[in-house]
């Protein structure tokens, strides 16, 4: 719980330090991309801090490449 609060604080600091200047300079596109990525990062971190099981991208990779990996391992045995 405290971890999530800490994350939110850090994110707010990042946002004010990075996104507000972007808005002031009128870089709307940069601002949008930054905000979306930050939102994504924040939700991931909070999920992690609340011990929600996040699927690992490595599992997807292993799933996609499974036939190839198996083939490699059997032929080179």
């Amino acid at each position: 719980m405290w971890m999530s609060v800490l994350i939110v604080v850090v994110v707010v600091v990042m946002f004010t330090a990075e996104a507000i200047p972007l808005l002031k300079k009128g870089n709307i596109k940069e601002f949008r991309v930054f905000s979306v990525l930050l939102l994504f990062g924040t939700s991931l971190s909070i999920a992690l801090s609340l011990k929600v099981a996040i699927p690992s991208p490595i599992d997807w990779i292993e799933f996609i490449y499974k036939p190839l990996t198996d083939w490699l391992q059997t032929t080179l045995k």
Partner: protein
Amino acid sequence: METIKISVRQFTILVILFSVGSSMLIIPGIIAKEAKQDAWIAAILGVGVALLLVKLYNVVGSIEPNMTLIEIIEKVLGKWVGKIVTIAFLFFTLVTSGEFLYFVGNFMSTEIMPETPILAFNILFAIVVIIGVRYGLETFARSAEIIFPWFIVLFVLFIILISPNVEIQNIQPVLEIKTKPMLHSVLLFISVFSLSPIVLLMIFPIAVNDAQQAQKAFFKGTFIAGIILVIIITLTIVVLGTEATAHLMYPSYALAKRIEIGNFLQRIEVIMASMWIITIFFKLIIYFYASVVGFAQLVNIKDYRPLTLPLGMIIVVLSIIVHPNIVESIQYNNGSWIPFGATFGLLLPLVLLIVAKVRKRT
């Protein structure tokens, strides 16, 4: 993109540190398991194949010398296919950055500071990497130039100090290995050592001030890094023996623990640790730089700096979730990583090359 230029010398050093990178600690164990006492021969063959791959990267880089890999992909494969391939490539660089961060945290918490949670190392290391990337390519290339002599001094010192422990009978009998384990170990060596320089195409040849010389520098850097790795692999085998090398997670670190000169110079394995931290720092920073610049080019924004913080946050989370434990990370590195790395390190440049050739003809 603003024009940033680094010198050929800086590029060579980046190639060396990048290629030695994560490999230094992990490779000896991986290939000693397959090739036993002939692991050093497998490594030499692997370096040979690596030089061929560098040739391929050089050719791909010279399709459009004034573009980064992402721009080349988009130009050669067209807008839509290009975007999809770019997203896949960024997925590759981001996940792999997260994995390197995992290696750092895991190494520090198992070998050096066992009481500290792994997240602490990952966050600290990520902050340093983010700062480095925000300063830009020129700055971290220059810092590589400053740190490189130290790396070489530590490396030479390490060889001299370990030499009394060498037992040459550990690599005998030579060439007892069969063809299949040999192929497998060469493949493992290549997968860790020479599939990732594709990421260097984000800074080469566009950001190097002399493209012609840079191609030679790419070869030279890979060759020197290969020699460093062959030396380390040979040393771990002649000092620790094949059994110990194959069973340890970090054989080259265990190797450094053996250093003992006259009862007063001992336990200096942190030499090895600092060499490794230096090299993996540059490996991670180039991967992360590639991800950030690539992402900026994907969404068409001029300055990549605003993206460093959120993407940094994402790689920290990735570094925690990529591998639930060390066993799975070993399985992944010996298994799926080979085809996954080859998709981007071998297939992607080949496809780019062929499509570019066909397009030029029509």
